[in-house]
């Protein structure tokens, strides 16, 4: 183990860039983005997102997959093992910084009914 005494600046290399082109945004996917914009520090399971957005499983998951692939959302297993929890582990989705930028931009450009009041903080 070596000492980490250093004065430093991190440099960003080209290979650090994820697949960050924006996916097609529909009114349904905007509902999902809106949820994450409103509480960007919170991580949601698929069932929670379905409950809040009213989207069905068959509609929601392709959206989540697409967002994850484009770096707007990221997901991780909840802490703990299934045996300990006594149920299957939940996969929790959270928004990335890139996702927040894209979401706020998209929501501000599009007049989505019921969505506009939610992002006055950008």
């Amino acid at each position, binding site marked *: *183990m*070596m*000492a*980490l*005494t*250093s*004065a*430093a*600046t*991190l*440099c*960003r*290399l080209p*290979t*650090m*860039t*994820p697949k960050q082109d924006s996916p097609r945004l529909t009114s349904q996917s905007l509902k999902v983005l809106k949820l994450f914009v409103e509480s960007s520090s919170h991580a949601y*399971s*698929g*069932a*929670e997102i*379905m409950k809040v957005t009213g989207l*069905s*499983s*068959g*509609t929601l*998951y*392709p959206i989540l*997959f*697409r967002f*994850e*692939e484009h*770096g707007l959302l*990221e*997901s*991780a*297993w909840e802490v703990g093992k*299934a045996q300990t929890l006594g*149920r*299957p*582990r*939940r*996969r929790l989705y*959270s928004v*990335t*910084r890139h996702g927040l930028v894209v979401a706020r931009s998209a929501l501000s450009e599009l007049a989505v009914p019921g969505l506009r009041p939610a992002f006055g903080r950008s």
Partner: protein
Amino acid sequence: MVTLISMVVASVILSLVASEVEQWFPWLAARLVRYEAAKLPRQSERMTEQWLADLDEIPGNVGKLLYAVLLVVRHASLAETVPTEEEAPGPQIVSVETPTISVSAPPAWITSTAVLNPPSVTLTGHAPSVLVQGPPLSASVQEVLRIADHRGHPAYMSTLVQPLNLPLHFASTSSSPTTPGAN
């Protein structure tokens, strides 16, 4: 009169049958979820566990069945968009030396190399507990650390560096740093 009695008996029997059938919905939903996950071109194991966890959260037997049926119905869309497999190893710290920290990562990782140069921040201490002090980090620094954290791989730095003057926790295999600069 006979007709009326027949109707009552029939409705009772039907309600009993419906109730009995509904008890099977969660089982059927789990079977459908496993079936759909198995048909995906990748990530079958992950989706099985993830969707079973969703089923566990959804109240009501009918709701569970509907959840599973709609996944099966949208198979083509799911199969097309399901994310690529997770990279097996997280980024590993391959060298830590003053004033450079190099991080090795698979090509698909967003973080491949992080180089620390003077004089914006100071790292003091030893892994796995390092104190970062200095002016606010650049956006790229914060992103590197955050991505490493949220990807679910506790392989690099597991604490966000915002604000500064907080301890950074290296939860990685950094105990065996090798080949300085070999990246």
